[in-house]
């Protein structure tokens, strides 16, 4: 790939990703509303929210909080950039992990009961999904012969038929990261449960906006990772459609079940997610897929 191409894709990724993310969140709310028999907000509602938040008077609960908020955003953008540059997938995920740590530390840095609790829950959430996310890279690398995303592009065959077990495990991760039922443990979109808004409790105004923006990037990045499973010449449109379909299924799941507890989540994620991937690695190793 030429340098121009690379620079272009980075610029597009950095600018377009949040637009898609915001739009997806808006559609999410709209669809959820419709599923509940309501009309729901306009699709671009989340952009209004974001701009409004940026326009609010800053209110700060301690300086470290801000450092971590910015750190969270920047690191996620870095991950997106690395992804756009088709760098090592494992590195992308490590950066994402760092970003997650920032979010938790930001929450833990304020002595507030809700924020503390939310931080700890988020941590457990990371405990649940991080290993799966990182492990998911292994079967991909085994198939394509390396960790860089370039390899996937050059592989020449869709990955999904062989790696659907891994794919399912990643869907679980996506559900946890999107904080949808049954995994909305550390904070919930609708903020009236026992921990108010968990990790976000003590952020306000522009800083809340920063975190929100980072969430958008994160969502798009994860969907893009799911999209990698279809990347191949003529079927490229499937790599856009599949993640969207998955995302839609997750929306439905969100609406048909309750939130479960964190201990269940960790058990489920480790038990099911890790075994799925382990099985997949094994099967690939044995050459059956």
């Amino acid at each position, binding site marked *: 790939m030429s340098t121009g191409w690379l620079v272009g894709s980075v610029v597009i990724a950095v600018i377009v990703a949040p637009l898609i993310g915001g739009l997806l969140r808006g559609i999410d709310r709209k669809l959820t509303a419709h599923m509940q028999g309501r009309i729901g907000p306009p699709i671009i509602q989340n952009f209004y929210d974001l701009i409004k938040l940026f326009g609010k008077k800053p209110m700060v609960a301690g*300086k470290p909080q801000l450092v971590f908020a910015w750190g969270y955003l920047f690191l996620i953008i870095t991950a997106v950039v690395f992804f756009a540059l088709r760098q090592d997938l494992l590195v992308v995920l490590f950066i994402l992990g760092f970003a997650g740590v920032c979010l938790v530390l930001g929450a833990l840095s304020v002595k507030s009961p809700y924020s503390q609790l939310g931080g700890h829950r988020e941590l457990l959430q990371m405990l649940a999904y991080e290993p799966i996310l990182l492990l998911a890279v292994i079967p991909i690398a085994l198939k394509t012969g390396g960790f860089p995303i370039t390899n996937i592009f050059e592989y020449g065959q869709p990955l999904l038929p062989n790696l659907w077990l891994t794919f399912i495990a990643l869907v679980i991760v996506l559900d946890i990261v999107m904080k949808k039922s049954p995994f909305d443990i550390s904070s919930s979109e609708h903020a009236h449960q026992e921990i108010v808004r968990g990790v976000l409790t003590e952020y306000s105004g522009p800083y809340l906006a920063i975190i929100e923006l980072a969430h958008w990037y994160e969502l798009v990045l994860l969907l893009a990772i799911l999209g990698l499973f279809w990347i191949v010449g003529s079927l490229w449109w499937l790599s856009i459609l599949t993640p969207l379909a998955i995302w839609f299924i997750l929306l439905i799941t969100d609406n048909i079940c309750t939130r479960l507890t964190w201990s269940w989540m960790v058990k489920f994620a480790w038990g099911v997610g890790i075994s799925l991937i382990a099985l997949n690695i094994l099967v690939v190793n044995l050459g059956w897929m």
Partner: protein
Amino acid sequence: MVAILLALAIGFPILTGVICLGIKNHKARAGVVSLTTLVLIVTSILFLRQGSFPYSPPPTWDWVILVLDYVILAYFLFVAIRDFIQRGMSRHNVLAIILTLASGIPLAVFEFSKAGYLPLEAEPTLYIDHLSIVMCLIISIIGSLICVYAIRYMKDHEEHLHVEKTNQPRFFFFMLIFLGAMNGLVFSNNLLWLAFFWEMTTLCCYALIRHDETPIAITNAFRALWMCLIGGVGFTLAIIFAWNSPLHTLSLMTIIESGAVACPVLLLPLALLCLAGFTKSAQVPIQGWLLGAMVAPTPVSALLHSSTMVNAGVYLLLRIAPGFQGTNLSTFVAVYGGTVFLVTSILAISQSEGKRVLAYSTIGNLGLIILCAGINTPLAIACGIMLIIFHAISKGLLFLCAGAIESHIWSRNIEDMEGLAARLPILAGITIAGMLSMLVAPFGVLITKWGAMEAASGIGVWSTLVVILLMAGSGATTVFWTKWAGRLLCHSPLPGPRKPEPIIPLYHGVLILLIACAVVFSILITPIYNGVVAPALAEAGYGVAFTTGHWFLKSPIGIFAAWPIFVVVALALIIPSLRIRTKPEESQAAYMCGENVEMGADEFVAVADERTPLKTGGFYVETALGEKNLNRFVIPIGIVFLIVLFAISVFPLP
């Protein structure tokens, strides 16, 4: 020239240690210690410039070593028997006696029967290569910094404990001779020499854990002693089996070069050396001694139990790894290391005492290095070596931070550290940075984790298991580090007026130096790789692990770009401080359902309108993941592993 260098590296600290024993004056002792450390640092750098070389001292030295070896063993016997008499029989002193005899008697019988009153020689006696130079740099630089730090720490420590007659001469004696012993250990090629220095570090370890002479310290010292002596027994047996093998040698190089594939008989001595390595690195099931060792003064923990002595074990494994390449032993070592990593990382979650968390994390990271040794590919070995470097820096730093914090709050409990970021911003900041350096992406420890993952993702059922252990363990480490960092950070948004943090040059200086090392080395990972790791790999007969370009590390299957992430982190740190001048009126108290007593106080209104202080706490899952609960499984698992170790080395399957 090289002889002088060796004398400076090994002999000089031992000499100054002995001198310290006689110095009563605090200042003078500080001078001697500082001088030693300076010499050591310079020497180690000269070693780096010198490169690898073999060296055999005159045969008289073999005699000296032989005699001193028995002296040390005799001393162990003496203290154990004395303890038996003074404090009555206990599991620890009995085992110490038995194991001393078990390693001393066979050795004596063997030496005197086989060699006919002559010390066994091996050519060359000492061999200096890049792996040992890396170790020497760690020992000399980090070890020295810790000794410097200890000058101040021991003063505070004794003041806090109201010690009447200072014990510092003895303390620094052991600290310094330990540095010499470690250098000797990493340079030795003759197994007998190696075993001697090995016992010498055990001696220092025992003496330093015991330093405070409290009953618990003494008990834990004996526990450390007998557990480390298992390694001594392993060494003795390894020597005997190696000599009795067709190679008929005591030279480590010869054994490794031959390798167990060519000569399966060597599998047993190699497995015994692995066992010795496991004990020194406090791997499951004998992790107990390292945790017990945390009663020692903090510089001891930093020096022996994190950055230096425990590294001897993993050093040995990396050293002999080429020897068992391609055998089941190698697979075993990888799975074992991974299991230890996972188990200890989970155990660390439930710990509320800071130093115990550090100890578990240390054991876990050593497990990770062992895992690398077991994977045994160039990439893995490179990662193992780099992990030794970065882990030593970060963990040494964290222990020293724990010590410095302790000297302020006189507690090691994580819960008591709540809100230190407000009270001691510099110290807490360094500590948090240190934790992050253990945990997150651009720092060296994670780069090596990345490499290990890439290396471990090879083909095979076992590699599947190993990566899963590795990843699950990493998940657990995130939890305990983040939790601890969070406790340090947790403070109420509007704190009252603060006293500025007292700056203690010896503490802050050393800490800043170490954190700078962690950052700079992580950024300079490519020169470090090219400078020391790549030659070490080549010398051990491995292929190329990474190529470098744009200051990125490239493996055949991946690329790691560290510095761009650093740039981002720097931005995240700088932007808020540039853009946001927090005005006081922008600060706002935490949300407590509107029940804050007044803005700023971290109290809320509760029963009968009383002010109730807000208490927050970390998350420990003590009931589910506590030591009591998990050790029921962990120790048997460890024992099963050791049984498997012998099974596969005695009956090597194809």
